[in-house]
């Protein structure tokens, strides 16, 4: 018994050590697995899973969704390094200032052209046309307060701002060109205090009157749930954030069938649809993977398009 144990153990050890690249049970072989990266928001995760099911429906490849990447910058690095193969959702405005380090473009069309050209040139990646929705930053206040104080556009906040607590996304506050500093310069007022927090917390904070105004995402279903009002961006301060998937050309060359699959989704998810998806995820507490499955089945995997 003892003589048998030793070689057996040694074998097990070496097998485990050698298989270090893909531990059994944790991930499939990387050859046939497409890794889709998403950040923490429900909308990127849902769309990531939609892509997963689409890819698995139309091709022989497996797809794995890697959720909760820190930010779009992390996602871009991961995409370049090959840690992920597809970025589920990228926003034009974010990557023009983040990944490309360019000045902001206010025109949505021009912005899309620039990211498509520059991502091809700099990173050898294909930036698709938009899904059909944009997720821009927008300043939100409580609905009843907007009514009583007659707040419609951001400039209307000026007289109230010195007493307002402003809750913002962690990654926004120091962002070059669209962060808090330029914001104060453009609109000519400052808030009493600014609280950076995880984006998911701002809506509740506002509804519970912990905050008086927050920087929200325009597609978030909780705006509707809590009856929050989006203020018009009267100075066109926030750049366009149209949503598209991004994939490397190397992978497209190896698996050309992926291009067709991703192309199928272009223009298929408009702002109402994404709001509905977000509502299911954020308010009804459904898992993004469940929502995505229902979505692709409802649309029959976009077979007829």
């Amino acid at each position: 018994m003892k003589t048998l144990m030793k070689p057996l153990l040694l074998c097990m050890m070496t097998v485990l050590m050698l298989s270090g690249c893909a531990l059994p049970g944790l991930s499939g072989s990387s050859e046939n697995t497409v890794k889709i990266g998403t950040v923490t928001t429900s909308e990127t995760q849902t769309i990531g899973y939609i892509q997963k099911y689409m890819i698995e429906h139309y091709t022989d490849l497996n797809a794995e969704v890697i959720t909760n990447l820190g930010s779009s910058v992390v996602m871009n690095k991961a995409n370049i390094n090959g840690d992920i193969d597809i970025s589920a959702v990228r926003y034009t405005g974010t990557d023009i200032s983040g990944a490309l380090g360019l000045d902001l473009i206010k025109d949505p069309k021009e912005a899309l052209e620039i990211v498509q050209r520059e991502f091809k040139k700099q990173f050898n990646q294909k930036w698709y046309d938009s899904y059909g929705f944009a997720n821009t930053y927008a300043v939100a206040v409580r609905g009843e307060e907007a009514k009583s104080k007659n707040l419609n556009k951001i400039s209307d906040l000026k007289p109230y701002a010195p007493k307002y607590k402003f809750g913002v996304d962690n990654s926004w506050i120091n962002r070059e060109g669209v962060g808090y500093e330029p914001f104060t310069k453009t609109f000519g007022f400052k808030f009493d205090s600014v609280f950076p927090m995880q984006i998911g917390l701002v809506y509740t904070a506002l509804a519970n009157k912990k905050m008086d105004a927050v920087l929200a995402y325009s597609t978030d279903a909780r705006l509707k749930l809590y009856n929050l009002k989006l203020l018009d961006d009267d100075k066109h301060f926030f750049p366009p954030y149209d949503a598209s998937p991004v994939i490397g050309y190397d992978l497209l060359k190896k698996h050309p069938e992926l291009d067709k699959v991703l192309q199928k989704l272009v223009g298929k998810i408009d702002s109402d649809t994404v709001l509905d998806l977000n509502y299911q995820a954020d308010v009804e507490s459904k898992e993004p993977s469940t929502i995505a499955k229902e979505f692709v089945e409802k649309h029959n995997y976009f077979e007829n398009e």
Partner: protein
Amino acid sequence: MDILTKLMNYYSQNAAYVWAEIYRHFLMSAYGVLFAAIIGIPIGILIAKYSRLSPWVMSLVNVIQTIPALAMLAVLMLVMGLGTNTLVLSLFLYSLLPIVKNTYTGITEVDRTLLEAGHAMGMTRMQVLKMVELPLSLSVIMAGLRTALVIAIGIATIGTFIGAGGLGDIIVRGTNISNGTAIILAGAIPTALMAVLADFLMGWLERALSPANHKHLR
């Protein structure tokens, strides 16, 4: 009450997903501890034999333990990229301290008279190690593995930030949405249960392997 129904609702809606994450979470923790055992136990034996090495090795594994988990993941991520392997490596590093330390303690605590008795019977050093020291220290080594596994299950939750998946995914999603308390619990409860269960089972194994119970086992 509302949270409880929401929680039940969540589990019934997403049962397959939750099971997959539980399995993945446990597997990642177990791999980390397994690799640490493969490396750590021989190291523990080695430093018990060559006691001049022990302060160096001990302070090294102690230092590893003091690095905050998030910082460790961030640094490892720069080298190894995203994914489960990075998490398994960091769990491996965190598991080293309890395993090395307990192995070292277990071996050095063995009664010297027994060792001398072994030598007097004409045993080689390997034989003494295999037949006297290891059996007598087995339960202490098991206690180290037990601690390591419980720690690993806890730390594995932050693997979600480097795309490793696991129950942390569910918890972080709960923090990202409003009224996510039920979802946070949906991820936290299995994590806690897993840690308690692992502790219980390893504790049972530890008692079963203790020298006092050896006769019953045979």
